[in-house]
């Protein structure tokens, strides 16, 4: 199978370390190129490009072999480097179809795809595009001849559309945008949004050779036209050379809008039209912070003035990292002159920034309370509708909060809930009515999803604590504290091992509270875990989120504790409210995470003798990594205790499917 080898050649050289987690789709550019190539002989593979685009950084690239067969059966000669529609396997196809209707677990792509597929009128006058959007051509299979003509452009448009669409949706660049067809990026660069990225040179080179179709040539022209604008960007080369998208004449208005609203992805998506409802189900793509232009732009608009940290770890450059301590005084000084932000939101933002409010429940509640205050003080400006204006307002608050600290998954759900409620407000409601409804909705959310859920969890979890147990807990989770206290009140005789870790040392505060209630505790650091594990009988862990594949996303170190416990054959119980369950699937801790202040791991307070890392930032060879979260594979989790009862990690999707949806719409 020459074709297989060839395709591997395309694929393999790419994944250098840099691209591991978040650069999965090498697909889009290659695919664009591929479409014309295939259209020469017969195009059926190109119909998969939408699905290809929907490959998100966190999704597993589909198996290669299927497409290999495909290509060979198509009679593509092997000397042509087989483009990467390759990774599309037939199995994937249904998901393409689904993508149009239901949001899949994956992040960004489905959102952008939704946007594209549902808004054919969004400014594409390109014939290929309209063809594609209007027909189900993508999913047609087996009559290549018929569809062939539409494909060269069709395949493109999807990518183009998608990539163009992303800036529309938000400024949070997705991976696919980074690698998007350059013609398009050129077009956007023209509008000021510079999305170009220097990468995958090899791919591009090979791409050039293949340019054949009319569509591509035209795209190239346009790309060259736009190259002037794009040349400012360091990725201009990409744009000029690779070309290949017909959508360079993408409607500028949208792009502008996106810039205006940058950072508030939610808002823009909300205003976009009928597809917004569905889109809201999909989590918002995160901004990739290794994209310099976008970061620059985001910074210009940012309320919080942050300085980028230096010497960031290569693998984690896509995550935001700032010099800590620089922004707080600045923000504080502007407390009284900050026009657009409601003071309560501002306060919460500052609390996030300083770390006074932490823990996903606490942050979520604080945010909702702040929003409630803001809604109470809100008055609809003349000639505006409450539904739309308030949504925009909330979105701007959210983007401010994101600047202070990236959203937790719980907050994301709460925000979606709130926006949903706003969107669902009857038009006949007066302003006061609407505000009262929203406030009571917020209260109900806090009550049902957090407070009552915690009570239910405590009720379930206590049944697992027996006399004589030794419980190991890690970090500081409020629900686990409640469980321990409740079990203690019930008179269970048990001992608690509080495991803690630098730099946050959250366990100390928890330890103090537990001891003051009369619990028998042992305090140790995570270094001693394997020693202390001998005497433990049960491990209780909190979670920031539980993902659809049963993976637990939690405070860094949790995975370590769970693995050691598993090695000791101890049951690992995860306590997590169901509203923190998430439809995403994540396999590693890289693609989505949060970086803390690297200084805190460099300095040990009170220990001058170990301060060997002074001025570490000046040494280019030294990078410090302070991760905030990690993921625990479901293999190490015995049970997840949630408000719906005790479930195995394999049942998380059921909860997400059965309950989340309906409650969101309630």
């Amino acid at each position: 199978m020459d074709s297989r080898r060839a395709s591997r050649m395309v694929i393999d050289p790419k994944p250098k370390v840099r691209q591991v987690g978040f650069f999965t789709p090498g697909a889009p550019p290659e695919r664009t190129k591929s479409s014309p190539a295939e259209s020469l002989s017969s195009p059926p593979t190109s119909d998969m490009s939408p699905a290809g685009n929907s490959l998100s950084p966190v999704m597993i690239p589909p198996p290669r072999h299927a497409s290999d067969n495909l290509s060979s059966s198509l009679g593509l000669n092997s000397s042509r480097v087989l483009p990467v529609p390759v990774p599309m396997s037939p199995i994937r196809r249904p998901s393409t179809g689904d993508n149009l209707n239901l949001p899949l677990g994956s992040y960004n792509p489905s959102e952008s795809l939704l946007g594209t597929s549902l808004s054919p009128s969004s400014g594409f006058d390109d014939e290929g595009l309209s063809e594609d959007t209007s027909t189900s051509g993508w999913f047609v299979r087996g009559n290549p001849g018929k569809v062939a003509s539409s494909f060269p452009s069709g395949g493109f448009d999807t990518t183009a559309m998608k990539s163009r669409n992303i800036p529309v949706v938000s400024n949070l660049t997705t991976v696919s945008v980074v690698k998007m067809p350059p013609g398009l990026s050129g077009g956007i660069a023209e509008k000021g949004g510079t999305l170009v990225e220097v990468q995958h040179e090899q791919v591009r080179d090979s791409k050039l050779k293949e340019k054949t179709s009319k569509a591509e040539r035209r795209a190239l022209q346009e790309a060259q036209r736009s190259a002037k604008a794009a040349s400012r960007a360091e990725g201009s080369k990409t744009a000029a050379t690779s070309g290949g998208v017909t959508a360079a004449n993408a409607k500028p208005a949208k792009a502008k809008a996106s810039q205006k609203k940058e950072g508030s992805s939610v808002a823009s998506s909300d205003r976009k039209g009928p597809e917004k409802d569905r889109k809201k189900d999909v989590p918002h793509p995160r901004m990739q912070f290794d994209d310099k232009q976008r970061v620059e732009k985001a910074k210009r608009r940012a309320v919080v003035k942050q300085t980028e940290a230096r010497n960031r770890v290569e693998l984690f450059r896509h995550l935001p990292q700032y010099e800590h301590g620089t922004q707080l005084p600045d923000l504080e000084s502007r407390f009284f002159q900050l026009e657009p932000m409601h003071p309560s939101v501002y306060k919460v933002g500052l609390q996030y920034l300083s770390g006074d409010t932490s823990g996903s429940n606490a942050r979520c509640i604080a945010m909702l309370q702040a929003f409630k205050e803001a809604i109470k003080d809100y008055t609809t400006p003349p000639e505006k509708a409450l539904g739309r204006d308030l949504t925009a307002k909330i979105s701007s608050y959210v983007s401010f909060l994101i600047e202070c600290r990236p959203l937790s998954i719980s907050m994301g759900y709460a925000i979606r809930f709130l926006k949903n409620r706003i969107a669902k407000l009857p038009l006949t409601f007066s302003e006061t009515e609407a505000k009262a409804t929203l406030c009571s909705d917020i209260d109900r959310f806090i009550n049902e999803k957090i407070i009552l859920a915690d009570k239910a969890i405590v009720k379930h979890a206590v049944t697992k604590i027996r006399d004589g147990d030794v419980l190991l807990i890690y970090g500081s989770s409020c629900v686990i504290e409640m469980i321990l206290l409740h079990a203690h009140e019930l008179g269970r005789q048990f001992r608690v091992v509080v495991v803690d870790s630098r730099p946050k040392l959250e366990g100390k505060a928890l330890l103090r509270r537990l001891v003051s209630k009369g619990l028998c505790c042992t305090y140790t650091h995570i270094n001693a875990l394997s020693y202390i594990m001998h005497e433990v009988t049960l491990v209780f862990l909190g979670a920031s989120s539980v993902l659809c594949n049963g993976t637990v996303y939690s405070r860094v170190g949790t995975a370590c504790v769970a693995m050691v416990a598993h090695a000791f054959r101890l049951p690992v119980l995860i306590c997590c409210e169901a509203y923190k369950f998430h439809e995403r699937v994540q396999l590693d801790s890289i693609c989505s995470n949060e970086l803390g202040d690297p200084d805190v791991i460099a300095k040990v307070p009170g220990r001058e003798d170990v301060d060997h890392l002074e001025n570490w930032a000046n040494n280019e060879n030294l990078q410090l990594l302070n991760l905030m979260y990690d993921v625990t594979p479901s293999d190490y989790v015995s049970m997840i205790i949630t408000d719906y009862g005790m479930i195995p990690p394999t049942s998380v999707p059921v909860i997400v499917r059965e309950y989340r949806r309906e409650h969101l719409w309630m």
Partner: protein
Amino acid sequence: MWRRSASFVLDKQRQQPDESRTERLDMSERPETLANPNPNPGISAYYETRAAHHGVVTSDWLAQAQAAVTRDPADLTLEKGLVAPAASSSGSAKAFSVIDEFNRWRKQPDLAEAVAAILALTAVIRTSEATTMMELEIELKKASDSLKSWDTTSISLTAGCDLFMRYVTRTSALEYEDFNAAKSRLIERGEKFGEISRKARRTIAMLSQDFIFDGCTILVHGFSRVVLEVLKTAAQSNKLFRVLCTEGTPDRTGLRLANELAKLDVPVKLLIDSAVAYAMDEIDMVFVGADGVVESGGIINMMGTYQIALVAHGMNKPVYVAAESYKFARLYPLHQKDMAPALRPIDFGVPIPKGVEVETSARDYTPPQYLTLLFTDLGVLTPSVVSDELIQLYL
């Protein structure tokens, strides 16, 4: 071992086995006396009944079986017509007790514990003097709680009670009817459960046929009515297979199963319980029943199942569980000790010296990772689906 793959069996036309084979089991005797409300809570009533049903193969068991064959058919009709007298007598004398009722049903060997519980609860509805749904529900709740607390060790009893309560509180069909219609509907439904349980066994037997291929050797542990039904169906459809039965100490249920299988002309070999690993080489699959299927997808079954599953897992042999869906319970044991222990006296045949402890627990928990598939009347499920079904059923 030839033809390891089961797929060729699918090519053959399956004969439809006749339905009326199982009726014989109905015929065993029904004790006339009512059991006292749990006389000895230290011993698992569930396992006592099981021992009574398919207990030791002894001469007096044979005598009992003999008697059962010649049983008076009037007894059966009386049982069917139990409805009216029970209602009238207890209605007048106020002597009705759900536990007695349950025990009466429980003594029927073909009736699963869960079904007996449901029938007992149906009787509660029948005798109830409630005039509203709410009242009835409260009454039922009380009855099911007392049933559950009467024998906390029986998982299927709990599951059956929960299931029926769920049905009563959840059924939308009840809402637009008047109370009496709803009540009779509930009763009708409850009475059907006995039938459902039998039907579930047929379904499971049919489903499992694809997995039993000619020339295979099957290890079974304990006596399970479902597993027996599975093997019986396989034998009836002229499959050639061999069965290895564990002895199943202390109540020697394996002997009983071997006895049943020998009647069907299935080649059977008896093993002592400790010979499982020794024999695992020649085994193609393990078939076990279950006392309860728990939320994790694991099963709670007669002592010894866990170690068999472990050995089978270690030797890459599939472990199949046959269990009716009413055995699904909302329990989630984390480890072996994390269950209400079902105790059962064990007779070692010799006096136990003072100071020597005896492990009398009657069952163990097999975690889901050691199970291959579960055959249920809902279909052939992987262990992780159990929780999905439970969530849909109870939430």
